[in-house]
């Protein structure tokens, strides 16, 4: 019986495995095997040839006209295109290291990045990577070489969040480095001034890039469910803070929701795709978002 790869979309399950490449492969396998449920199915591919049906193939790809003519089952196969360049900008600032559950935001972000990179390469597209905190720490130009994935993933695995972030400057820097048009995928918690973030993102838009903002948040950051007296240990140079979280909850949620609202509205204004992902969600959301964006880019061409 074929393995059910969809279970690898669960960050908890994935966390138990070692090796980012393996994780990326399992995520993509799981995602693809679940694509029959996805509304984005077949958007990005062109028909190539027929092959004979074998058990396990999706019958929706059955060519009924051929069956009507030959009384045999044939599956339609599609030719994938390789004309897209995707850059993944992965935030490795210290705020990304927070995680209430088994998976931190950064770990989750690496899963997303790795699986996206694999997916991109699987589709014969080129993928590049930028790791940043308050500056661009690593930058890898886009390539469609299958070996490229290993290089990128090993770089990701060697990094860990340490510094604070300054997105506006980073985005300007990266935008200057990328010459060809493509898809820019920013994976971050975007804990920065929304105006500055949006200013930075607008530079990408200005250079005709499709931009996808994947905001990775911990569920606790969204719901703030703390009850007891808590010492919040600040990251990114913030001082520790001892407060009664019950008393502050309402104010915090107000501030957080305001920030999220402003960021989302800003993205929409400059036609940037925005998706908020919590670290307890399945990983296919990120991949689906990417595929939708890619389909949009294909149509635009």
């Amino acid at each position, binding site marked *: 019986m074929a393995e059910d790869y969809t279970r690898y979309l669960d960050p908890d399950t994935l966390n138990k495995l070692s090796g980012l490449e393996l994780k990326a492969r399992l995520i993509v396998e799981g995602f693809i095997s679940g694509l029959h449920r996805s509304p984005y199915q077949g958007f990005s591919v062109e028909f190539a040839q027929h092959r004979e049906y074998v058990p396990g193939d999706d019958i929706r790809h059955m060519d009924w006209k051929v069956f009507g003519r030959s009384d045999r089952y044939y599956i339609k196969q599609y030719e994938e295109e390789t004309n897209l360049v995707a850059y993944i900008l992965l935030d490795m600032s*210290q*705020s*990304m*290291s*927070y995680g209430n559950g088994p998976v931190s*935001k950064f770990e989750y972000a690496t899963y997303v990045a790795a699986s996206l990179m694999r997916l991109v390469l699987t589709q014969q597209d080129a993928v590049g990577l930028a790791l940043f905190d308050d500056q661009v720490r690593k930058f890898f130009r886009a390539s469609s070489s299958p070996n490229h994935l290993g290089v990128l993933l090993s770089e990701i695995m060697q990094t860990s969040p340490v510094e604070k972030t300054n997105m506006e400057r980073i985005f300007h820097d990266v935008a200057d480095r990328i010459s060809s048009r493509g898809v820019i995928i920013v994976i971050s*918690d975007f*804990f920065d001034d929304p105006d500055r973030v949006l200013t930075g993102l607008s530079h990408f838009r200005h250079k005709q890039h499709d931009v996808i903002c994947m905001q990775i948040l*911990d569920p606790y*950051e969204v719901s703030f469910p*703390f009850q*007891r*007296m*808590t*010492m*919040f*240990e*600040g*990251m*990114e140079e*913030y001082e520790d*803070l*001892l*407060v*009664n979280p*019950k*008393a*502050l*909850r*309402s*104010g*915090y949620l*107000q*501030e*957080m929701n305001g*920030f999220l609202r402003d960021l989302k509205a800003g993205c929409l204004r400059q036609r940037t795709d925005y998706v908020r992902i919590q670290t307890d969600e399945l990983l296919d959301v990120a991949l689906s978002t990417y595929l939708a964006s890619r389909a949009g880019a294909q149509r635009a061409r």
Partner: protein
Amino acid sequence: MSFGAAGFLWGLAAVSLPVLIHLIFRRRFRRVPWAAMEFLLRALKKTRSRLLLEHLLLMLVRMMILALLALGFAKMFLGTSVFEESIASEDRPVHLILALDDSFSMGAAHSGGQGTILDMAKKSALDRIGQLQRERGDTVTVLSASFGGQIVEGIRFSTDFEAALAAVEAVKVSDDSGNLSYFLAKIHSLLEEDRNPEGKGSLHPGKTIVFLTDLQQQAWLGAGKEGSEFHKMLQQVARESQRFDVIGIDPSSPRPGNLSVVGLSAAAKAVGGGLKTRFVATIKNYGEEVVSGVAVDFLVDGEKKDFRDSIEVGPGAEKDISFDFTFQESGKHYVAIMMEAKGVQSRRNDVLQVDDRRFYAFESRNRIRVLLVDGDPGERMVESEVFHLRMALSPFRREETPDDWVIRPEVVPSLPPLEKLLRMDVVVLANVGQWSEEEAESLRTLVRRGGSVLLFLGDLVRKSSYNHRLFGSSDDAFLPAPLEGPARQGVDLVEESGLHLEIEEDAYSHPIFDYFKDNERLQGLFTQTQTLNYHRFDMERRVKGSRILARFTDAARSPAILEHSYGRGKVVVVATSADRHWSFLSSSVIWVPWIHETVLYLSHRTAGSSNVSVGERFRGRYPFFTREAPRFYEVETEGSRRGLPRLRMTRRIPFDYDAVSEETQLSVTETKTAGVSRIEFESVRRTGEGGDDELVSRQDFVAVNLDRKESDLLRISPEELQETYPGVPFGKTKESGDFSAPPEESRLWWWLFLATLGLLFVESQLALLFGAKHR
């Protein structure tokens, strides 16, 4: 400002609890690394001042709740301290004589709800002792007022203040009523004994006498008014001391409400043999409000037998409550009444509980031996003077009398010797003509010892013999009044149809007419009974205290039935005959019940000797030898409305044998506690002529009751005290502060408790409001 229970002020420390809890909770936090600190800081910045305000407000309210609770429990009063007028500032030695009223009325609850009056008096006394200075040469003497006044051993002009403090602490409310005259005499003798034997002055000059009392009006006025010996002694004591303070504790409550069981006795027919006996308890309400919801338990020999619920007693009124009980066995018994005021209102009107019980000891018998002395036997029985008496008392032949028939009459032609007479409960003399000296003395001895005589007169009665032998002098008269001889035809007896009897209006409550009390038809038959002749009495020489129970309807309304107490017994004289020669009384339908009621009444030997007041000597008289010293027990019934009494052997007491009266006498003086005591002993009973002696176990009960006067808690005000005893230089008559007498308006603690409740409500609402905001 002062406090009734200052110990609770320690509770003020609890004010710091909210702060401590806050600090403890601040120390007990968990650490969480946090990325979204920017938003947290922004939220904090916006809400910091509001949160701080809410927090402070809640903490302040909580601290106030705790502070108010502590002050409330400490019973905070407005006003100054009681003891601001301190004796500590004296420059000469202070010889303090502390006299504590420990009579049972001091056990009443203090109007401020701070324990009893005695508790407050002790507090006051302790404070005074605490101000004494050994270096200055101060001394202290402690006296208690009960049982004639007692100086606490070792605390007489003593410098051992610690012992004095302990002695005051140890003073308890006694069951005595505290005789003020005796107590004052005790203080006076203490002052006399302290006179300097070598000259003028005293060994301890400058004495300060402080008498701490409830200023009970009946005690003071009962001791003597202006010009009395008591008044003079007050002046003398005040003169001989440097200062004489009579301090009324709790004067703000001039008439505390109190319910008391002031009486309990048998309705004169306490017998056994299956006859119902009625006991009457009297409850008095000394207060000014109607008290309802009073429950009363009736106990026989320590066992609850009956109860009454929801009794109501008006202000100042007495209420009689009767209980019936049938004693199957003869012997010594006691009954008890336990009262309880239920409900807040009732309890408020019964501030003294010790007088909510009363005891009554008595003897019930299943044989009443009646000796009928026939003064006119006649030839046939039916012509006998006592025929109708005999038939009324027992309509059977002697050998056919049923075992359970209580009254056992025996007819004799003349008075038997004293030895036999003393075995009789009632002796009925019917138309006996004359008396020898010996016979008269036998009758006197019988009645002195508690026996009773019912005398019917008649045509054979010689007035000279009766007046000489039985009346004698009015100081020792056996008869209620001397005889004047039979009524005279045409003078006293003007109606041919004869006369009738009329019962005195107030005599219907008398036990011998109790049967007719509520029956008008029977009363009519009684008064319609014809009388043909009677003996007249010389009423001018009538014995003081004798009582006329019925009269004839002649012009002079001559006495028909008279009663007279002699010694421990009773004498009832009927002026006419027991046969039909002079009266048709014996032919009337009322004859049988009336004779029965009268004999039952007379057979009831007065229980006075078995029922004494606290401090009164009990004298037991037993017509037999006791083999060994009786053992004396106390039956504890106090507070045991439901439980059985417990026996506690206290001591063996010696007895005396009086060879003249052939009685064993027992004298118990230590009747200091209200309750019932049981005396157990073995006596020697002779089984027959020349036979062996037999040992028989016997018991007797002694009921010791409180003095009912002490239950009246009406107080004399300090001003009235000064007016009643002019010329007595009382130093102080009330405390300078309000320690013992907090005026109503100064009782802050009630308001504090109310404020606490209000704040609790505010706190819960604030917590709800702030909590709702934070959710």
